[in-house]
């Protein structure tokens, strides 16, 4: 069935809805019938006041209008390991409509202790492939772009232009400094997170600021080293990063701007240090 008239589609959506909610199954069937992408139908449904059931329990914490902002948002996740996998999972469940995930790496057995997207059957497989499959399995309305090459500034200049927020989920200082400088050039806010063992840190850097450079000033040449990290530290820091991303996108709440949060789970301490 070819639909040219929004009114007809809205009528069909209304038929699908029960007390202001629409189920995935019904919208998917309508997408097949009308040849209109699922994401577009869900946006149209939201405009008419029908909330996809997937987002029902978001509404209240965020408004229906804010859910629509998330559905149209563009967020890039750089690194898809312990932090990135958790960040991606949460962005998909929140309904951030356009997500770019960037990681050249494949899963190895030693990732299983902490990386949410890793599993025995995916050892040797690309992390971003696993990421896009996971996102599609949770939320097929999300447009996910995957990039399976090493992070590099030159490529990032073109690729990251137009994104509203970038999540730093990298695993080494040189790349983090490159990403920070790139985001400054592109005028994109950067949500930084890092973990090691029982400790983690996060901060949100706006364009024109250089908190990341201040943190890593002395250690800019240090090589990537093998460290130990248990599952709970990246899961926690990733959650904190996602909450920063959502506040950035919605323009409300308090951000960790010009301060760094230092988390120590062994001492169970959360400190914030102001940085000027």
């Amino acid at each position: 069935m070819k639909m040219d008239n929004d009114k007809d589609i809205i009528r069909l959506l209304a038929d699908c809805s029960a007390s202001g909610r629409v189920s995935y199954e019904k919208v998917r069937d309508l997408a097949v019938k009308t040849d209109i992408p699922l994401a577009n139908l869900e946006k149209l449904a939201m405009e008419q006041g029908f909330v996809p059931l997937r987002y029902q329990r978001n509404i209240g914490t965020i408004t229906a209008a804010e859910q629509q902002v998330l559905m149209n948002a563009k967020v890039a996740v750089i690194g898809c390991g312990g932090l990135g996998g958790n960040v991606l999972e949460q962005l998909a469940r929140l309904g951030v409509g356009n997500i770019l995930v960037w990681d050249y790496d494949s899963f190895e057995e030693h990732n299983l202790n902490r990386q949410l997207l890793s599993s025995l059957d995916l050892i040797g497989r690309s992390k971003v492939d696993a990421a896009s499959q996971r996102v599609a399995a949770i939320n097929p309305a999300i447009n996910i772009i995957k990039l399976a090459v090493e992070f590099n500034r030159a490529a990032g200049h073109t690729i990251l232009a137009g994104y509203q927020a970038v999540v730093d989920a990298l695993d080494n200082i040189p790349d983090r400094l490159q990403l920070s400088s790139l985001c400054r050039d592109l005028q994109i806010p950067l949500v930084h997170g890092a973990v090691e063992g029982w400790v983690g840190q996060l901060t949100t850097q706006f364009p024109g600021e250089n908190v990341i450079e201040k943190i890593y000033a002395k250690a800019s040449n240090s090589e990537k080293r093998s460290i130990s990290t248990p599952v709970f530290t990246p899961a926690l820091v990733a959650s904190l990063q996602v909450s920063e991303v959502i506040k950035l996108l919605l323009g409300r709440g308090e951000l960790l701007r010009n301060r760094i949060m230092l988390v120590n789970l062994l001492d169970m301490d959360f400190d914030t240090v102001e940085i000027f």
Partner: protein
Amino acid sequence: MKVTVKLFAFLRKGRFKANILEFPEGTRVLQVLDALSITANERNIGILFVNGRHAHLDSILQDGDVLAIFPPVAGG
């Protein structure tokens, strides 16, 4: 003069989280680290902030300053 020293992550091991310490006027950050037996290795990687501003080993401290030292964490 009194300086508040805050230590983070492994720098706390065998030391403390936060402490107010007494030093003579003109004390530099390096001398505080010496007083706390912070090793050369710990010192070389430690990130130093005095009252939220990026500091150096030879920065001179003032009465009431808050010195925060934390290691660079970069894993993902």
